[in-house]
């Protein structure tokens, strides 16, 4: 089910009403209330996911069960450890053995989850590449399975639980229903934010409370998310698709403009999804982590990565980069660690050399900053306390933006040859007339305007959590005028529902 579909427009109010009125209010005296409400979350989430393909529900259930089971096994080992401490007065050999057991359980769960991910997402890619390298036929070797939507997202979420339990950051939960709700919670199931057990799981273990202000803010965030997706991203997509599918016939400047439009499209698409997800979760009394923080207003690429797809970046930071030593190791190892996380981050997006190249490109941009210790130079918000940025900041922002634009060309292209041809085409600048004509077509004006609206609003509200955090506007009429204007823009742009780019990951 897509957030921008009629089905979801009907699904959400039904689930909302049942969640608060049936499973919260009418059975509030029952000791089963919380568990039933969580079971309802699981059911609703499975309906949401099953709308696309119910067969893959078994995969989510299996992933959830394995991670929950690994937590339970670790709990048992932990209890044995405590017993052994109590009875034996700290037999270190026994404790080491139990510690090894815990490690083994966590490793087994990680391997199992990654194996599932590898089979569905990467197996065919590796077999094809291997066969090409050794000139072997792939007949009968390829699985040709459909990629289950959101598999990378929920797998990483499940892994984070297992690792956090092993590290002792979170207590393993016995409540299987709450755990299943944590993995499958429908707003963020298929495209994140990739939640941490330390943040989301405890929220399923205690009673949620409805708060008017949070719910209203959630509605606003949903509206802003849909604006970014339907009005900005989907309108940009029309022209981006047109240019990318005929890139050999386009002039250099048209190719550059299409790449810029794709930069806004992917931001509108993915951050729009995240905003809608976070807003929807708020309606259910759940707080999800922030996934985007105005990334195109970054002053260098390190700042960009602190603001883009935050849940994935921090995941790799906490579970890969820091365990490898982070930046507190020799320079050679810092280079290695930086490449490892960026290449993994690229590969996480899909089995294609373009994603790996995209990761490598960002690693190359990031390295000088981390090696010179400037990677945390900009941790505050740009133009703090000012309306407009300084000239230097504007230059830094534009440079970072265009570095991102080139990265998105690699990301968007179906294969590396296309990337090379596209970049080659961009170098042949030639006449600007064709691209001027193309992008000043009357039907292009609304798209240009929508992008400007998004940028201006996000600039003005860059310190807020989302672009429609307008509770400080006291005039109700003005607030509602803004809501209706956005609703009209959404409805006016709404055509055949377009899927989200990040669903494929």
């Amino acid at each position, binding site marked *: 089910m897509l957030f921008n579909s009629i089905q979801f427009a009907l699904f959400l109010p039904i689930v909302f009403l049942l969640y608060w009125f049936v499973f919260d209010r009418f059975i509030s005296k029952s000791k089963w209330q919380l568990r039933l409400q969580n079971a309802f979350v699981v059911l609703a989430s499975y309906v949401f996911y099953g709308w696309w393909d119910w067969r893959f529900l078994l995969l989510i259930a299996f992933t959830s069960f394995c991670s929950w089971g690994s937590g339970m096994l670790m709990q048992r080992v932990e209890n044995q450890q405590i017993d052994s401490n109590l009875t034996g007065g700290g037999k270190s050999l026994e404790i080491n053995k139990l510690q090894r057991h815990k490690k083994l359980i966590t490793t087994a769960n990680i391997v199992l989850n990654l194996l599932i991910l590898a089979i569905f997402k990467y197996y065919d890619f590796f077999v094809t590449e291997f066969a090409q390298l050794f000139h072997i036929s792939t007949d009968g070797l390829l699985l040709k399975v459909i990629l289950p939507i959101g598999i990378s997202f929920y797998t990483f979420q499940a892994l984070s639980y297992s690792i956090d339990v092993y590290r002792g950051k979170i207590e393993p939960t016995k409540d299987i229903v709450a755990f299943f709700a944590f993995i499958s919670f429908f707003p963020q199931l298929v495209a994140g934010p990739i939640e941490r057990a330390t943040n989301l799981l405890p929220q399923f273990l205690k009673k949620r409370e409805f708060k*008017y202000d949070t719910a209203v803010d959630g509605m606003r965030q949903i509206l802003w998310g849909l604006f970014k997706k339907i009005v900005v991203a989907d309108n940009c997509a029309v022209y981006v698709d047109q240019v990318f599918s005929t890139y050999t016939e386009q002039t250099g400047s048209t190719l550059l403009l299409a790449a810029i439009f794709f930069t806004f499209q992917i931001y509108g698409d993915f951050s729009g999804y995240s905003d809608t997800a976070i807003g929807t979760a708020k309606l259910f009394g759940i707080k999800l982590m922030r996934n985007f923080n105005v990334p195109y207003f970054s002053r260098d690429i390190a700042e960009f990565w602190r603001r883009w797809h935050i849940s994935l970046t921090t995941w790799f930071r906490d579970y890969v980069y820091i365990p490898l030593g982070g930046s507190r190791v020799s320079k050679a190892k810092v280079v290695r660690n930086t490449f490892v996380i960026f290449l993994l981050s690229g590969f996480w997006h899909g089995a294609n050399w373009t994603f790996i190249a995209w990761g490598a490109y960002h690693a190359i941009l990031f390295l000088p900053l981390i090696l010179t210790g400037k990677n945390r130079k900009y941790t505050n918000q740009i133009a703090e306390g000012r309306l407009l940025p300084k000239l230097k900041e504007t230059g830094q922002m534009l440079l970072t933006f265009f570095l991102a634009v080139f990265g998105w060309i690699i990301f968007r292209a179906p294969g590396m040859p296309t990337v090379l041809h596209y970049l080659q085409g961009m170098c042949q600048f030639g006449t600007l007339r064709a691209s001027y004509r193309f992008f000043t077509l009357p039907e292009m004006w609304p798209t240009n305007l929508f992008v400007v609206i998004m940028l201006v609003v996000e600039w003005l509200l860059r310190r807020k959590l989302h672009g429609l955090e307008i509770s400080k506007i006291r005039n109700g009429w003005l607030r509602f005028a803004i*809501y209706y204007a956005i609703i009209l823009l959404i409805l006016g742009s709404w*055509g*055949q529902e377009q899927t989200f780019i990040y669903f494929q990951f």
Partner: protein
Amino acid sequence: MKRFIIRTVLLIIVPLLLGIVLCEYYLRKIPNDYSYKNEWLSNNAGSIRVLNLGSSHAFFGIEPSLFSCKSFNAAHVSQSIKYDHFIFSKFVNEMDSLEVLVLPVSYGSFFGFGPENGIEDWRVKYYSIYYGCKYHRFEPKYNLEVYNGLQFDKVWNSILCKADHRTCNELGFGATYKLENRSEDWKESGATAAKRHTMAKIDSSIMEKNIRLVGEMVDKCVEKKAQVIILTTPTFHTYRENLNREQLKLMEDCCNSFVEQYDNVCYLNLLADDRFLPDDFFDADHLNEFGAAKLTKILQQTIDSLGILLN
């Protein structure tokens, strides 16, 4: 929570639904080919003597005003056998004068089952909304004009009574494919169109369903003592040369089997007819107004040669 729900319902949902309902109303008010043909058939079915069904090949290829008797073109772009069958079944009992049913069958007709789930599936809703078709009764996608967006410009024009989306003439002929509008690279369209109409894999169950539907239409014509002309419209060589021989033979065999099975069926295969010259085409698989006049004349001659009394 009550405050939240009441405010959301009253200030957001109700105005929103009201707006959507109004947009749907005004979008439905805009005349189009589907509403026009349904209305025409509802009022005049009894007087039709030659009924033409089919897809764009017939919509732009058969000009009913050139027949010597009352005829109507009930073809629509991308209309499949399923929807031919639907339109025919809806009006057949009122067609007391029906003498000839022209049933165009194209290269891909037997192997697909409606525009659903393809790039043309947005057309399905027109059968539901304007013809009252109930094949997809509970799917919003196939029942609402607003499903493809509120289209404020169209709504506004509809309010001002300025909108008219009809592309057919008064007898249902699609008169917009003219020689003067033909694109320069019209010949090149043949390969892509042939590829689009060629099935990656032929699904025998779909083929059987289509054959059954054609059979039902023929049976009804037997009952009404009407003749059926199965027609394959002319195509340009750039289209023909890119067809899959196996699929083409299967299509022709199906058509011929109806001729063998029924006395009231004849098959007019004009796929490679050399009477159609390059200037009769709009693109590689559609005729223009001159080609349509030529095709209609050939149909008239066929009807005459069959000895059907059309006065």
